[in-house]
């Protein structure tokens, strides 16, 4: 399975090279990869029910492995991903023939395919997440493929941010789930459902995982990115938005259903969100005129339906979910590709400009018609079969409300099917239709193949029900299930309801033809305040918050920075003092006159330096402080220090005299140093804190081990009588080494600064 | 006896040294202009420091200490006048006003700032008539 997952990645790496070498044949060679995977999966259909796994250690320290598991659910997805993937690669070869960035396109597409395969096959929580994020990344690049268009860039970012948000929630949710379930293997978690549902982390984990799934699967209110993602080239839409990426969320919910499902929280949330999404998607689809957008909204709706079906965690629900999954993938893939053909050949996707294409594009029309029928659930299509299972599920889930939701959805779908299949193709030839031709074979293979499958499976559901749907449903339900898919069912009242819905849908389509425009105008102000606008507002709000807080922290004024720094440090340190009983010492015994004088003098000089309004006074006062400190060192037995201090003080004066003369005076600015009171308070507090800290230190006994040892060892072991010097050049010579490097580097740094003065080039 | 003499000498040196240091301080406080203050600082200050250095030399009496103390005196005698000269020069360059009791100033106006030099007087002092005393 690792090979299966890696193959698309590897082909992604060589794709640009292939495109350069093989030109239009590149798509055929690339299509071999998903094709082979499809064959591989078909050959393993038998093992779907039993499940097969492979574990390759990745980061054992974190218990993360490339664990893969092929069972019914993942098998179904692998089939869809690789099967539709093959068609899409071929389709893209035609659609983007001659495009300058075709190589790059295939890189992203294959990357996406690999990620998606990895996602559905992963049996490791973290591996799943890795692939999950990779799908977001690949879709970001694909949606933004036409990067010169601002809308494409916006859509790509929106998709990434929304799914990214969900992804982060998902990560947390998955970790919590793993912690609750005690394992990092999905297969273990599924078995440990009871433990998880009883765990304190269940609810947060569930909410977070749902958040991830909902964003990825474009559930209300996170759906807005999906229509936007129509900025992507059509093959991408076909691929991402039919078969795969958007279904990742559904996949995850289905996958975790055995572990998380069955609780009221789970069921209610999924039913509500799924239901809203389903209906809202359909109604919004009605309001669109862009073929791709209509399809996108129906995708949103379908995803809602899937979530809706998974919600109840019943056996029928599982059956219905997988059946609808397959159905939707087939018809939606075909419809997107067909819409792409229309766009490609007629030059527009706007329904208002499209009409009468049937002559020019008969094959495309046929594929569209069949797929639309499947979408609407018309008998003899796969949609009809799955609709039946769905209704059963709805009834099982609790009767009236779910059933009426489903029925209403059917009604709307019929109307939409009409818009998609009838409007562009039938009627009078529009201007665009005159120019149109049928698409090349590479672009017809996909829609035709998928439409044929919709038809084929609609007629012979047994082809898939046992081999594919049953194992998948079992995986979703967590227990072995059979799927009974019948084309002809005994007539009962639900069937009647369906036909009523069909009729109402047809009526709606006819009525809507005339009224749609007015409704669009009327609803526009309402819709413009929907989640899409919410996304914009959120981003704008983020920008405002960001720039507000940045101006707050980073006003560009050094004195604010220093004030904040001192305040914070003083406050936090002072607070820390209260972590224990503070004892202070006040050692004042036997003070000598000269000590008092020197201390007083130094303090006075310091105050003078602070209050000085002319800089020479400040500097001379500072010099006095330095001399005072030198005297203090001398008074307490530190001649080396005193000399050093004095020498340094002298050289500082030399430097100051050299520098100050080139600078403007104090007087201009001294008065402007407000806020004085605040600054004085900060300064006073800092001084006080230092006093308290030092008096506290002095209250503690001092451990003289080191100095005693230095005194003992200095002469016999280091051959020096000046202990300070011995420490400097021997005991702690490394300090001194660092120190001279400071002096050395200070010189170089100063020279660098002086060179900067000479530079005078103002690039920025 | 020697000890007493040494002590006596020490006492004199210390008191005189510290005394002159104090005089220097009072001098720079009391005297009315910069140049006059410099008299106090350079003469009394130097003497004060030197006397105390001598006191140290005598009191310790070891060769290296005496040598260093005498070197210190030498350094002081050598450096202080240079410092005074430079301050005086600064006073003139800046044009700091002198005490009104000043009786004569041959240097006034002799600094040529643009050429950064101090010119000799136009006439030699011998032939000059002293300017009339302004004070007294």
């Amino acid at each position, binding site marked *: 399975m690792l090979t299966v997952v890696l193959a698309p990645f590897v082909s992604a790496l060589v794709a640009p090279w292939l495109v350069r070498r093989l030109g239009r044949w590149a798509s055929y060679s690339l299509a071999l990869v998903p094709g082979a995977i499809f064959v591989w999966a078909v050959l393993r259909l038998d093992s779907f029910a039993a499940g097969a796994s492979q574990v390759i250690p990745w980061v054992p320290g974190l218990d993360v492995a490339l664990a893969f598991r092929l069972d019914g659910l993942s098998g179904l997805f692998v089939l869809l991903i690789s099967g539709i993937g093959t068609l899409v690669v071929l389709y893209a070869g035609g659609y983007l023939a001659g495009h300058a960035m075709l190589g790059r396109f295939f890189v992203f597409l294959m990357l996406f395919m690999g990620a998606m395969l990895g996602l559905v096959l992963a049996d490791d929580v973290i591996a799943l997440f890795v692939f999950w994020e990779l799908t977001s990344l690949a879709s970001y690049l694909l949606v933004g493929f036409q990067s010169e268009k601002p809308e494409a860039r916006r859509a790509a970012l929106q998709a990434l941010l929304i799914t990214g948000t969900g992804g982060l929630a998902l990560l947390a949710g998955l970790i919590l789930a793993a912690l609750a379930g005690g394992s990092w293997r999905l297969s273990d978690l599924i078995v440990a459902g009871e433990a998880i549902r009883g765990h304190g982390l269940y609810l947060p984990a569930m909410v977070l995982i749902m958040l991830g799934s909902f964003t990825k699967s474009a559930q209300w209110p996170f759906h807005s990115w999906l229509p936007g993602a129509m900025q992507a080239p059509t093959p991408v839409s076909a691929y991402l938005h039919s078969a795969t990426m958007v279904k990742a969320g559904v996949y995850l919910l289905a996958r975790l259903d055995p572990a998380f499902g069955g609780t009221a929280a789970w069921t209610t949330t999924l039913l509500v969100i799924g239901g809203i999404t389903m209906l809202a998607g359909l109604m919004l689809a009605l309001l669109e005129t862009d073929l791709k957008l209509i399809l996108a909204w129906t995708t949103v709706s379908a995803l809602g339906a899937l979530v809706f079906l998974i919600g109840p965690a019943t056996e029928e629900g599982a059956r219905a979910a997988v059946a609808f999954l397959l159905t939707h993938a087939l018809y939606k893939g075909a419809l997107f590709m067909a819409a792409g053909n229309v766009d490609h050949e007629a030059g527009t996707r706007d329904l208002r400009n499209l009409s009468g294409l049937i002559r020019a594009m008969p094959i495309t029309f046929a594929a569209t018609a069949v797929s639309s029928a499947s979408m609407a659930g018309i008998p003899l299509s796969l949609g009809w079969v799955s609709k039946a299972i769905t209704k059963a599920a709805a009834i099982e889930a609790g009767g009236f409300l779910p059933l009426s939701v489903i029925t209403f959805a059917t009604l709307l779908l019929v109307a939409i099917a009409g818009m998609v299949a009838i409007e562009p193709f039938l009627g009078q030839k529009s201007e665009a239709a005159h120019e149109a031709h049928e698409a090349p074979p590479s672009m017809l293979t996909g829609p035709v193949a998928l439409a044929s499958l919709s038809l084929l499976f609609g007629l012979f559901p047994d082809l898939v029900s046992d081999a594919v749907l049953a194992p998948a449903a079992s995986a979703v339900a967590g227990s072995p299930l059979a799927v009974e898919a019948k084309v002809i069912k005994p007539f009962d009242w639900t069937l009647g309801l369906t036909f009523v819905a069909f009729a109402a849908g047809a009526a709606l389509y006819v009525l809507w033809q005339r009224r749609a425009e007015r409704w669009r105008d009327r609803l526009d102000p309402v819709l413009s305040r929907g989640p899409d606008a919410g996304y914009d507002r959120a981003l704008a709000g983020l920008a405002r918050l960001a720039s507000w807080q940045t101006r707050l922290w980073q006003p560009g004024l050094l004195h604010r920075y220093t004030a904040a720094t001192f305040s914070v440090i003083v406050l936090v340190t002072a607070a820390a003092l209260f972590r224990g009983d503070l004892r202070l010492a006040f050692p004042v015994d036997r003070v000598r006159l000269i000590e008092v004088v020197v201390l007083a003098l130094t303090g006075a000089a310091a105050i003078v330096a602070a209050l000085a309004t002319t800089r020479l006074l400040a500097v001379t006062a500072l010099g006095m402080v330095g001399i005072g400190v030198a005297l203090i060192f001398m008074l307490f037995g530190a001649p080396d220090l005193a000399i050093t201090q004095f020498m340094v003080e002298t050289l500082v004066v030399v430097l100051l005299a050299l520098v100050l003369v080139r600078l403007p005076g104090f007087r201009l600015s001294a008065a402007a140093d407000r806020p004085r009171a605040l600054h004085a308070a900060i300064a006073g507090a800092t001084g006080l804190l230092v006093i308290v800290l030092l008096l506290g230190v002095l209250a503690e006994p001092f451990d003289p081990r080191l100095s005693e040892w230095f005194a003992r060892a200095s002469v016999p072991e280091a*051959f020096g009588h000046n202990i300070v010097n011995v420490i400097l*050049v021997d005991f702690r010579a490394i300090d001194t080494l660092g120190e001279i490097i400071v*002096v050395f580097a200070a*010189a170089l740094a100063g020279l660098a600064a002086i060179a900067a003065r000479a530079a005078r080039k103002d690039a920025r | 006896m020697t000890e007493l003499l040494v002590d006596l000498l020490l006492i004199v040196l210390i008191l005189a040294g510290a005394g002159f240091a104090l005089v220097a301080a009072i001098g720079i406080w009391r005297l009315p202009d910069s140049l006059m203050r410099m008299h106090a600082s350079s003469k009394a200050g130097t003497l004060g420091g030197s006397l105390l250095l001598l006191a140290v030399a005598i009191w310790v009496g070891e060769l290296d200490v005496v040598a260093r103390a005498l070197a210190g005196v030498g350094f002081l005698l050598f450096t202080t006048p*240079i410092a005074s000269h430079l301050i005086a020069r600064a006073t003139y360059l800046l044009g700091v006003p002198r005490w009104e009791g000043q009786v004569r100033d041959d240097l006034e106006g002799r600094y040529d700032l643009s050429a950064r030099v101090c010119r000799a007087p136009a006439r030699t002092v011998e032939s000059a008539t002293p300017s009339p005393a302004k004070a007294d």
Partner: protein
Amino acid sequence: MSSLILRAGTRLLAPMMLLFSVFLLWRGHNLPGGGFIGGLVATSAIALQGIAFGPASMRRTLVFAPATIAGAGVLIATFAALPAALAGLPFFTGLWLKLDLGDGAVLPLSTPLLFDIGVYFTVIGGVCALIAALEEEPALEDQDMGG
């Protein structure tokens, strides 16, 4: 500064200070002094010369570029830490060579002393580099006032 008195005084004081700085360096291991203090005093001497005679004279005295001297000082100090390797001792272990000059006089040569010499040169080179550079760079409005 073009003061005759300062220049004459500097002629005598600068060498005196340099000599004194070597004295401080040498005896630092046993009495107040050492590489830093010695280096700082030597720097003062050269700075004095720089003020009295201008930076060019300062550079002539130093012979090498000040930054080079500082760099060499760092290298000397670093290399003082290395001979220990030859003796199979850890980094920075002091090695002592007490040359007997006869008559009880001993000339103690050691890696700590070498290290202190490195310190001495680094201080001189580093500080003088800055002072010389500042002396040489006149302020904008004083282009003709340097030196």
